[in-house]
């Protein structure tokens, strides 16, 4: 068997790198997906309200968890790579648009940069970076099928408003399942157009935008075609509204109870505080 990166170059860089599942045997991997999803939600809420010290503490905790999951820091940072430009932009927004009260770093009349702006910018950017990191830890330690089944279980209460959690889980699963297929398809459309003289890399922005549009159109059509056939195939395999079973049902272990207990304690402390 070829190493994955050799067979699928899109895995090496680009958006696809964002939190791809890393197969390991670790306590974090073995946790029930439901627990992990809820932990990420709780963690996110904490992070969004954290001050500098709790943010540093949370970062330490996140790194400890990823260590426990045996995910190298480098892999974790690689997941950040595609979103870095966005974070840089976010930082600049805070720097320039926070009203400069008190001591100023820079004063050019209209443009004023205060220490406060830089501080707020750093804190906010830090929060978002940590959000991406913990979301990546979730997706790196939980296969997409585990995530979908976890979602399916967590969303079951939606049944009372007549929303089927099975359908939602299936939609998520199908979206994930078709990402590589559509990427492969986009590449072949692109190659077909390159072969006929299209240019995606150089030239005026307008021309390149138009070239990109010419990709989107056939791709959209092919998505509809995929859907049509997929629906038939799913029906032919007995898919219908209502209950279904899965190959692996999540099981709550002792570790899951522990983590859930810790989370409850954290949430209560936060509420009381």
């Amino acid at each position, binding site marked *: 068997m070829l190493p994955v990166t050799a067979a699928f170059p899109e895995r090496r860089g680009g958006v696809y790198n964002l939190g791809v599942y890393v197969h390991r045997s670790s306590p974090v991997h073995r946790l029930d997906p439901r627990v992990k999803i809820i932990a990420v939600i709780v963690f996110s809420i904490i992070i969004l309200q954290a001050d500098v010290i709790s943010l540093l503490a949370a970062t330490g905790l996140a790194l400890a968890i990823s260590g426990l999951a045996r995910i190298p820091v480098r892999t974790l940072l690689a997941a950040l790579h595609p979103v870095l430009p966005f974070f840089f932009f976010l930082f600049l927004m805070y720097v320039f648009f926070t009203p400069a009260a008190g001591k100023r770093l820079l004063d050019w009349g209209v443009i004023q940069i205060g220490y406060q702006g830089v501080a707020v910018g750093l804190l906010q950017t830090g929060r978002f970076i940590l959000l991406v990191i913990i979301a990546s830890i979730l997706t790196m330690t939980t296969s997409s099928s585990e995530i979908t089944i976890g979602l399916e279980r967590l969303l079951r209460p939606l049944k009372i408003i007549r929303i089927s959690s099975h359908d939602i889980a299936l939609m998520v699963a199908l979206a994930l399942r078709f990402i*590589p297929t559509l990427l492969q398809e986009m590449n072949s459309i692109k190659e077909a157009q390159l072969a006929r003289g299209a240019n995606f890399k150089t030239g005026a922005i307008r021309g390149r935008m138009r070239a990109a549009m010419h990709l989107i159109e056939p791709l959209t059509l092919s998505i509809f*075609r995929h859907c049509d*056939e*997929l629906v038939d*195939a*799913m029906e*032919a395999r*007995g898919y219908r509204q209502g209950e279904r*079973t899965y*190959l692996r049902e999540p099981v709550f272990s002792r570790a899951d109870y522990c983590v859930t207990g810790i989370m409850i304690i954290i949430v209560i402390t936060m509420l009381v505080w």
Partner: protein
Amino acid sequence: MIRIQDLMFAYEKHLPPVLQIPDLIIKEGEYTALIGPNGCGKTTLIRHFNALLLPSAGGVWIDDLNTREARNLVEIRRRVGMIFQNPDNQIVGMSVEEDVAFGPGNLGLPSAEVGRRVKEALAMVGLTGLETQPPYTLSGGQKQLLALAGLLAMDPKFIILDEPTSSLDPAARQKVLSLLQNLRQQGIGIVHITHDMDEASRADRVLVLDQGKLAADGSPAAILTRVEWLKALGLAPTQVTELMWKLRQRGETMATNILALDEAVNEISGLLERLRASSNGGLPGKAGRSV
């Protein structure tokens, strides 16, 4: 048993029917090839077998289950599995094993039973060892085998295939075809739509559909040797049958029911034998023959 009675199908009431089959029975353990020109209604017909389409008039029964009754739907789809032309669009799961588990999961079987069936089905098609692979890493042939495993895990009585080999390379094609033969021997009924008369010649029975009507129904030897007729329908006869037909056209006396290569070889060496005898032991050549 798939039983069709007075089937008529039209997409809209005021449109002419695209399918009219007075009666047809397809049995388990029988390999049926369904051939016919493009747009003759092959795909429309097979879609009636598992209730993806319902007849406008008449009925279709799987054993004693009428496809019209909604409560029979899941059981009908368990009994009659269907494979489509493009393997990519029938894979639902994010890994090989999960895809195979989709059908049994829809039947609501317990996890342990799903697991057992997944293992068994993957072994049957020879994909054991690839359980956790994402499906997009498979080759076209492996994807079609995966689709077959997905059906086998539902323990079907019939497998209906709509040009399953059209996008496969020759080796993968052979693999799928020989697997189908195995399944037939295990008592599963196969209905195989194909444009390839060589594939059709492996069947027990050939159905020819033309303009929505059953134009012929019989053994491969009886139907695939009707070279002129097949050509008139726009189908490409096998090389063997065409060779025999061309020899007959030249006035040679050849048996009319020859389908297999070996039979053709025997027949031709018989012909050579006769020629050799008539030209007093000399090897037949053009000059020899004109004498």
